[in-house]
Structure formats: C-alpha cells, structure tokens
C-alpha cells in the first residue's frame, strides 16, 4: 500500500470530519434560531466579531443573524470549569462522552455525499470508503453509540442519570428493530434477482432515478423517520434527558467540554441520520423524481459534482429543519407510551409492511 494513498485518505477524512463538525455547530445555531422563531422570540443576535462586525451594512446584518454565535458557544464549552463529582466512576465517566461522539463520526466514512462523472464516463460516488456492506456498517457502528449514554448514566453513580441511561438503552434496542425491518423492502428492491446484489448506499441512491423510495414506500419512510427520532434521542423521544422528570438525565453530572461532546454528538447523529434518510428515501442527489442531475445539462465534470453535493446537502438541511421543527412543536411522550409505540405499533407495522412489499415486488418482478 502506497504511503501517499494513506496520507491522502487521512486528509480526506480530516476534511469530512471538520465539515461535519462545522455543520453541527451551525445546527446548534439553527436550533436556537428556529426555536425562537417558533416561540416568537428573536434568538441570538448580539455576538459580533471585531473586524467583520464593523463592516457597514453586512456586519450588523450577520450579527443579527447570529452567525458568530457558534464561536463563543464552543469557547464556552472549552473554558468553563470542568467539574468531576467525587462519587463517579472516573474511567467510564471520562470515556462516555467520547464513546457517544466517535461512532457518529465513524459512520461518516460510508456515507456518500455526491457523485462525479469521470472522464471515462463512469459515475463514481464522492465517499471516503465505498464498501459493499455500507448500510449494515452504518447500522452496526451507530448501534454502538448507545454505550455512551448508558455508561454516562451508570458511571455518574446517582439516581437521575442512572434512570436516564436505563431508559436510553431500552429505548434504543426497541427502536433499532423496527428501524432495521423498515428498510428491508428497499433492500429487496435493489437486490431483486435480475440485479447485482448490493447494500451500498451509493447504489441505493442511484436506484432512485425514477420514483424515490419515499414515494412508493411511504410507510417504510415514516417508520424509519420515527425510529430515527428515537435513535437520536430527539424530542419527542428524549427519554434519556427529559428535563422535567430527570433534571437532564444521563448528562446531569457533566459539565464543560464533556457535556459539549455529548451535545455535539447529538447533532452529529442528527446530521448522519438526515444523510441516511436522504440517501435511502429522498433520492440522494436527484433534484426531483424522474429528473436526474444528468438531465440538467451540466451533469458531467466538477460543476455536476458540486451540484450533486449541493442538492444532497440541501435535502439534508431540510430534514434537519424538520427535526428541529418537531422538537419545538410536539410534547414529550410518557415512557410507557414510547415502549408501547415501539413494540406494539411500529414493529408489527414494519413487519406487515415488509410482507406486503414481498408480494408487491414479486408481482412487479414477474409480471413486468
């Protein structure tokens, strides 16, 4: 293996991770702005940078948008006093925030974020590692992130975090099942007998040149989306935190940068979740159903590649907005309602959905 190749991969990985982290910090800003918009407030509008802030019209405008807010937010996480309570299990207490962030950043490796047409006319994904079992890899690694929350709850060694950790582990296991079953119709369709077998996210996105999967598998899409909310611990499923009952759940004892890691981890999971939903159900980088980038005219070359990335990121940001919109609109479930929804409604529904699509896909395959 060439050393240049390895260095190049490191550089690519660094770029992608920094983009994800940038998206996370601006997602926090977006969350604050959207919440204030929904609640009829203004949101962050004071933070200003010395030089850019004093440019006549642009400076005040950017300041009012709150564009500079993520910088002091990040610095605050870094420089606040880091309190480690005396009753915690130190090793796991320090490890937990790391464990909750690392899986999110690892899954980025298999997520394609655009495509480029090479000189030979081949369509190649823009992705760090184009692996055949990409989708499974993603599920496998993201299922590890629950340990961050569970260990944080356990190692804090006090009542509320502990309850938060227990809730999180039960909830994540329950919703993983329905989530896994809900995407099986898609895999059946992209692996049907005439085609080359694949679990590659790029191939799944490319299979949606016509209908997007969300259009003819709406139930799968809805189940997957609900499970995504549960897996990312976002309201209305934030049982692990649920301020009104558990103070702030698993991260009650955390402060400063350790809390910051949890915080960023949540948004990183949201970013990845939105990417996956876009790839699986919303046609990836196809601008509209039945319209591919190639039809727009500048499909080939770097402009087409940039366009595909832009469309993909646009869809992803739309989903992020949806996540935030739901958070500030719906009230939280009770815990028994969460369990009931997962086991008694979503799981049977996803299995019924799977069986229905077995027949539909069989019919489409044999008669068309």
């Amino acid at each position, binding site marked *: 293996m060439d050393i240049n190749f390895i260095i190049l991969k490191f550089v690519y990985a660094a770029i992608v991770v920094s983009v994800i982290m940038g998206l996370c910090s601006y997602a926090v800003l977006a969350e604050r702005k959207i919440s204030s918009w929904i609640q009829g407030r203004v949101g962050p509008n004071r933070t200003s940078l010395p030089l850019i802030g004093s440019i006549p019209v642009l400076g005040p405008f950017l300041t009012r948008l709150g564009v500079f807010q993520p910088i002091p937010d990040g610095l605050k996480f870094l420089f606040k006093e880091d309190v480690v309570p005396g009753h915690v299990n130190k090793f796991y207490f320090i490890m937990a925030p790391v464990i909750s962030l690392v899986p999110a950043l690892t899954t980025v490796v298999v997520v394609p974020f655009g495509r480029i047409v090479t000189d030979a006319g081949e369509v190649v994904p823009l992705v760090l590692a184009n692996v*055949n079992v990409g989708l499974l890899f993603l599920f*496998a690694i993201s299922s590890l992130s629950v340990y961050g929350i569970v260990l944080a709850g356990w190692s804090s060694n006090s009542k509320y975090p502990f309850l938060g950790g227990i809730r999180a*582990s039960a909830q994540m*296991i329950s919703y993983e099942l329905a989530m896994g079953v809900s995407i099986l119709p898609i895999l059946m369709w992209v692996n049907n007998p005439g085609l080359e077998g694949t679990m590659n996210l790029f191939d799944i996105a490319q299979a949606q040149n016509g209908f997007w999967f969300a259009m003819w598998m709406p139930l799968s899409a809805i189940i997957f989306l609900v499970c995504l909310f549960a897996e990312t611990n976002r309201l209305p499923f934030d049982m692990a935190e649920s301020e009104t009952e558990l103070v702030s759940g698993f991260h009650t004892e955390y402060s400063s940068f350790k809390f910051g890691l949890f915080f960023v981890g949540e948004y990183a999971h949201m970013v990845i979740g939105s990417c996956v939903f876009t790839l699986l159900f919303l046609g990836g980088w196809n601008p509209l159903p039945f319209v591919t980038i190639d039809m727009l005219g500048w499909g080939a070359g770097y402009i087409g590649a940039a366009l595909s990335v832009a469309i993909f990121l646009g869809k992803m940001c739309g989903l992020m907005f949806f996540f935030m919109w739901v958070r500030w609109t719906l009230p939280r479930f009770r815990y028994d309602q969460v369990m009931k929804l997962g086991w008694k409604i979503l799981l049977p529904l996803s299995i019924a959905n799977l069986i229905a699509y077995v027949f539909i896909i069989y019919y489409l395959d044999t008669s068309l």
Partner: protein
Amino acid sequence: MTDIFFYIFSILALACAFGVVFSRNTVNGAMCLIGTFMSMAALFVLLEAYFLAVVQVLVYAGAVMVLFLFIIMLLDVKESAARKTSIYTWAASLIGFGIMVIGVVAINSAESIKTKTANLPVAEGVNLKNFGYELFTTYLLPMQVTGFLLLISMVGVIALSKKTNTQ
C-alpha cells in the same frame, strides 16, 4: 501491513478476553467482552469476511451486550468480593483448559485437517448475494436448526422467568 493488524487485533482480543475472566467489576467485564467482539470483527475484516464482521458488531456488540449491560445495571450487581475459589471451580477449569490444549494440539498436528493455501475453498460469503443464496439453499438445514435452538432457548427463558401460579 495485514500481518501487523492481525497481531494488534489478536493481542487486543486476547487481552480483552482475559479482562472478561479476571475483572471483579461486572461492568468492566461486559466492556471487555465488547472489546473482544470488536477485535474479532476486525479479524474478520482482515479475512475479507466483511459481512460477518459487520454482523458481529451489529448483533453482539450493538444489541446483545446492550442487553447485558442493561441487566447488570438494573440488578445493580455489586463488585464481587475477593472470595476463595472453590476446589470444584479449579478442577472444572483445569479440565476445560486441558481439553482445549488437546484440541489445539490435535488440530495442529493432524495433516488431514490442515488446509493448504493452494486449495482453500472458494469464499462464497464475500459477495453478500452469494452469502444469502448459500444460506438459504446449501446450508438451509443448519440454519433452520440454529433458529430452532434459539427458539427453544427463548421459550425456556420465558418458562423460567414466568412466575408459576402454585395455587
């Protein structure tokens, strides 16, 4: 390169396995077990059995061990005090270890079992589609039997944990 990774992950797997056996704290033990599973998944990757590696992480590290941790935390198992190991435990573990040593020696010395590098069987499982196809045609019976075993254990757990009404 592959050799170096093999040694790294083998050592990691063994170290974690020892950690599972020797740690007094149950949560430590569970975390070590997760480490073992992860390094075994890495070994599968080195063997180019990507599907197996991913499933190893997905099923064992991602689901089974979460349940383990869940139970450990729910029961609030205290750190087991350093108590004297009984003579039976010693005898059983020695016998078990002896059988394992005999097995390893037997496999390594028997020429008929060893596979020459030249005539390795075709790795059908590398391609995901082949894997599924083989699983549901050639190896259908073993798979059904395994599934049935799991069903039996599940029924057993339900039967054991359900409170019987003696009245």
